[in-house]
């Protein structure tokens, strides 16, 4: 399930949704707000999304992961609104019988979520400026997949 929220993400509560008697492995990933980006000191981050399509596209990503990898359960929650340094912006959790597929599916989901969901972030810098963050692949490869 894909979810967007304005509230603090609680990984311990989310994790409990993924339990399954057949699960031998659980992999999770969290994106945290860090105090710098590309050499600039960051004060906080503001996330905006277009929720109907972000949820729809996120559900699609999770379904794709479940087809590609033999997992049991997978979920993703993305925070929106104003976030401070250290806060969790995104959480992905996957449970599966064995660890290979838990790691691979978790990685697949976060990679796709970052480049496909209509979510944007504006960095507010310590120097008072702010700016929308360019997409990950735009900067490095000049192209979005």
């Amino acid at each position, binding site marked *: 399930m894909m979810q967007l929220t304005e509230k603090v993400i609680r990984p311990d509560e989310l994790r409990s949704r993924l339990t399954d008697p057949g699960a031998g492995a659980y992999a999770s990933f969290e994106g945290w707000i860090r105090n710098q980006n590309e050499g600039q000191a960051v004060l906080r981050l503001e996330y905006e999304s*277009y929720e109907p399509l972000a949820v729809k596209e996120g559900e699609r990503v999770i379904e794709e992961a479940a087809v590609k990898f033999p997992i049991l359960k997978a979920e993703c929650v993305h925070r929106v609104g104003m976030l401070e340094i250290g806060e969790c912006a995104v959480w992905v959790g996957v449970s599966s019988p064995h660890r290979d597929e838990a790691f691979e599916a978790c990685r697949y989901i*976060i990679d796709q979520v*970052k480049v*496909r969901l209509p*979510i944007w*972030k504006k960095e507010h810098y310590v120097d008072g400026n702010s700016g*929308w963050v*360019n997409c990950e692949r735009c900067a490095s490869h000049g*192209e*979005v997949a």
Partner: protein
Amino acid sequence: MSKTLTVRYFAAFRERAGIDEETISLAANTTRDVFDLLKTRHRSSEPLRHCKVAINDEMADWDTPVNDGDTILLFPPVAGG
């Protein structure tokens, strides 16, 4: 032929356009035409290949035809996570 379209702007596009959405008449056959015409109108320099588009809440691509009455969502480069 001119079509009446509702265009919604997000994030950097919204700030650049100064509006959330507008309903306009455009001589556009595809989403690409819409992007190009509005790029000029709002003096945006973002390359199309970094952006995404949706029609009536469904993700589309840049060759998708637009129809009279459609709502076009213009997404600047996304950056989740």
